[in-house]
């Protein structure tokens, strides 16, 4: 079939029928009896917890499963009438584009222009055709200014757009995206989702998007497909999905839907706009603001503000080589963090969050100013980097190792192979490795720092992490014995995830281009803007109201 026929045809962009698949040597099938159709020009959101089969379904739709991964497959997958099981990913690429989670491994060329041009070159397109296609796709994705850049000088968001451009340059009918925003800051994440919506509307590209942060993209979707243990558990409109998730899997609820459900308001909103319209329809335009009365404080059991300072930065300047030249990444940071505080370090990609944590841990030397830290355990963005042995006990020998395992709740796993642990357990093991020997008995070090710990995490795992952070900070709500509160650490988490920050943090430090641009209680910071604000804050626009529970209390009072 010609490319033109594939592109213009009226057949479904994707038709999956009775699909079952098992990875090589896997005990349990990754997909079981999956049937699904995506119409041309449709925007479908693929929801589900981790390991529910979302990524495998996307890989089956682009031919990587089974052609690249092997394994056993049954059923039928057709992409624009091409048999995806019989055709390889290269043949399918004219009809389908695929964008994975990690942008680093999705670029294979040195410059942006060459990367975008590569798929056309592989198909033998003429240079003039290639030049036009590169120009058009770069304009559509607003990246013409990047064309002459080397790919290793791009930020995560820019790299993700370049990978998307390379996937779109053949003008496929269907684009598959596997958590494309998981490594992006809120600004870049929102921009990517609305870019997809625009491509969907203006180019007619069908979109199948797997995401954990549903609040970010539910409003853009025409339809939601929820997966559970390799099967489709729900397939319907976004509003129906919210009603379904409320009872079937509350971990998939969006914050705005949870807000309405707690406040007893129907229908559940698919986004901020729908939520505001519903509230306006009910005559609720300004629910009473109870920030001063304690409703706005998500962490009323926060430690006393006068506990010992454990991290103190004074006029801290750090200079790093970012490829082309030396650049000031931190510019005169003044910051004091006290024992027991739970602090979210937020800001755009490249704002200096990781650099601040790495400087505190001694990985970078300041060029001016100073930073004093009362012992720090830092877990970087890739917990797997800490795991080098084949037995948990071999990573953490002796009493110090056992104490660290107890702190993270992994003492039962001492004989396990780290590779057999779940993602959350591996993360906790890596944290125990960073903690081992830095504790005085059961007392934690002054600072426990986590760098982007929620990448690719579903809501259930984030809730576990919130509980672990509270325990590390010595929060009495999470520890059995109140006396352990005094041994809690300051927990500092660099994160892009505003909903997660609202759940765990009592204080938010917002960095912008190497300087502290805001520092205050999380309820205040996360309700005072657009990008660095929770969905509930954007719905209600009330100072101090950031979580569904606070919002529901305010709404109940307003009615």
């Amino acid at each position, binding site marked *: 079939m010609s490319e033109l026929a594939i592109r213009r045809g009226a057949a479904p962009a994707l038709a999956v029928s009775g699909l079952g698949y098992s990875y090589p040597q896997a005990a349990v099938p990754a997909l079981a009896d999956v049937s699904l159709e995506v119409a041309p020009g449709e925007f479908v959101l693929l929801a589900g917890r981790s390991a529910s089969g979302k990524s495998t379904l996307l890989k089956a739709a682009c031919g990587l499963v089974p052609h690249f991964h092997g394994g056993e497959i049954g059923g039928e997958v057709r992409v624009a009438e091409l048999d995806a099981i019989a055709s390889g*990913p290269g043949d399918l690429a004219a009809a389908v584009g695929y964008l994975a989670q990690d942008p680093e491994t999705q670029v294979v060329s040195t*410059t942006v222009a060459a990367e975008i041009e590569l798929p056309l070159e592989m198909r033998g397109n003429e240079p003039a055709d290639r030049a036009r296609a590169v120009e058009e796709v770069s304009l559509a994705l607003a990246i013409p200014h990047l064309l002459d850049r080397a790919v290793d000088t791009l930020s995560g968001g820019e790299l993700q757009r370049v990978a998307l451009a390379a996937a779109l340059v053949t003008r496929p009918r269907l684009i598959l995206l596997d958590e494309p925003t998981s490594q992006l800051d809120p600004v870049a994440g929102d921009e990517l989702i609305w870019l997809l919506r625009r491509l969907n509307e203006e180019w007619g590209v069908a979109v199948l998007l797997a995401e954990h942060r549903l609040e970010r993209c539910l409003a853009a979707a025409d339809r939601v497909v929820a997966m559970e243990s390799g099967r489709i558990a729900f397939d319907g409109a976004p509003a129906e999905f919210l009603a379904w998730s409320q009872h079937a899997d509350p971990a998939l609820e969006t914050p705005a839907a949870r807000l309405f459900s707690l406040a007893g308001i129907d229908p559940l909103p698919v986004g901020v706009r729908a939520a505001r319209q519903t509230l306006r329809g009910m005559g609720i335009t300004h629910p009473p603001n109870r920030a001063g009365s304690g409703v706005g404080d998500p962490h009323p059991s926060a430690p006393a503000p006068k506990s010992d300072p454990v991290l103190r930065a004074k006029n801290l300047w750090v200079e790093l080589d970012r490829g082309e030249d030396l650049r000031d990444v931190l510019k005169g940071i003044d910051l004091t963090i006290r024992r027991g505080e739970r602090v979210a370090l937020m800001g755009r990609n490249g704002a200096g969050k990781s650099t601040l944590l790495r400087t505190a841990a001694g990985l970078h030397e300041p060029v001016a100013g100073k930073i004093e830290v009362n012992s720090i355990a830092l877990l970087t963005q890739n917990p797997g980097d800490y*795991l080098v042995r084949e037995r948990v006990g071999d990573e953490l020998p002796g009493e110090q190792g056992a104490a660290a395992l107890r702190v993270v709740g992994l003492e039962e796993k001492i004989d396990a192979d780290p590779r057999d642990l779940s993602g959350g357990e591996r993360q906790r093991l890596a944290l125990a490795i960073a903690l081992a020997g830095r*504790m005085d008995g059961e007392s934690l070090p002054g600072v426990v720092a986590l760098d982007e710990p929620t990448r690719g995490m579903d809501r259930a795992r984030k809730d576990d992490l919130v509980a672990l952070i509270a325990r590390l900070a010595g929060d009495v709500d999470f520890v059995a014995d109140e006396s352990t509160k005094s041994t809690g650490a300051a927990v500092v988490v660099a994160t892009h995830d505003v909903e997660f920050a609202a759940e765990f943090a009592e204080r938010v430090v917002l960095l912008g281009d190497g300087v502290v641009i805001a520092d205050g209680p999380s309820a205040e910071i996360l309700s005072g803007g657009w990008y660095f604000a929770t969905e509930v804050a954007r719905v209600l626009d009330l100072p101090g109201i950031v979580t569904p529970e606070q919002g529901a209390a305010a709404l109940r009072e307003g009615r």
Partner: protein
Amino acid sequence: MKSPFAYQPRSRPLQLASPGAAVAYLGAIVAVAFLYSNPLVLIAAGVAAVAAGLLAGARRAVRVALKMGLALALLIVVVNALVVSRGETVLARLGDWPLFGQVDVTLEAIVAGASGGLRAAVTMIAAAVYSACVDPDRVLRVLRPLAGRSALTATLVSRLVPVAAADAARLRDAARLRGPGAAEVGKAPLARRLLAGSLDRAVDVAATLELRGYSLDAPRPRSRPARSRYDRRFYAVAAAVLVVAIAGKALGADDFQTYPTVEVGLDPATLAVAAIVALSGLAPGRVSSLLGIAEQTRHAEVARV
């Protein structure tokens, strides 16, 4: 940290030229270094390579290559001085050394070593300028129709080397961040972990290549890619340098002898070859930049009028 030799796109003539023209130009400078032993011509070739790199904006690559090249040159001088005892001008008698035997350091051996060292340094600087200024994607595009499998391997390597370097840096950081109570990270477990990670990365990159259609047996495009307006300049300079170098060699411009005594010819032919080779280093400059001073002077005069 990015390697100083990594390609950096810039709007300079050497980067904009086609890979063939850039290779011809830099290759001509290296060819001079291999054709000649006369230190003056070798220094001229070194000056040309350094000037080419600086005018192409590859300051860091030139600086690092210069340091490495001079260190290598020094090593060659020392080794040559210790292992070659020929030459009449003995500077030091160091007695009997194990393996080396009687070691006499002569001026001639030092000069011969310096000549070889200069040649190696020129080659290193030119290679560094090539690496920092010639787009590997364009080189691979030229190679792909001729040797598809080699181009695929080169593509994978060119992508995986920086990724593996970044992985290694991350693993080193993680090793430093382990608590003092955790097991020490030995080199073997770290290497195993890096290898396992690299294999995972290689699978991801290979999947991306597959999705981009690398496995397709695509027809070659009928029309040739557009050439750069700077190609002629680089081909012409390369041809001129080679013609002058070969003619000079034939006319005895490489008059240089190290043993038994050092004799360096500085006749007009040698000076002319050295001058032309050194001037070839200006080829990557923009004409407007090279004439910048004259232009500024003219503008200043116009302004005064």
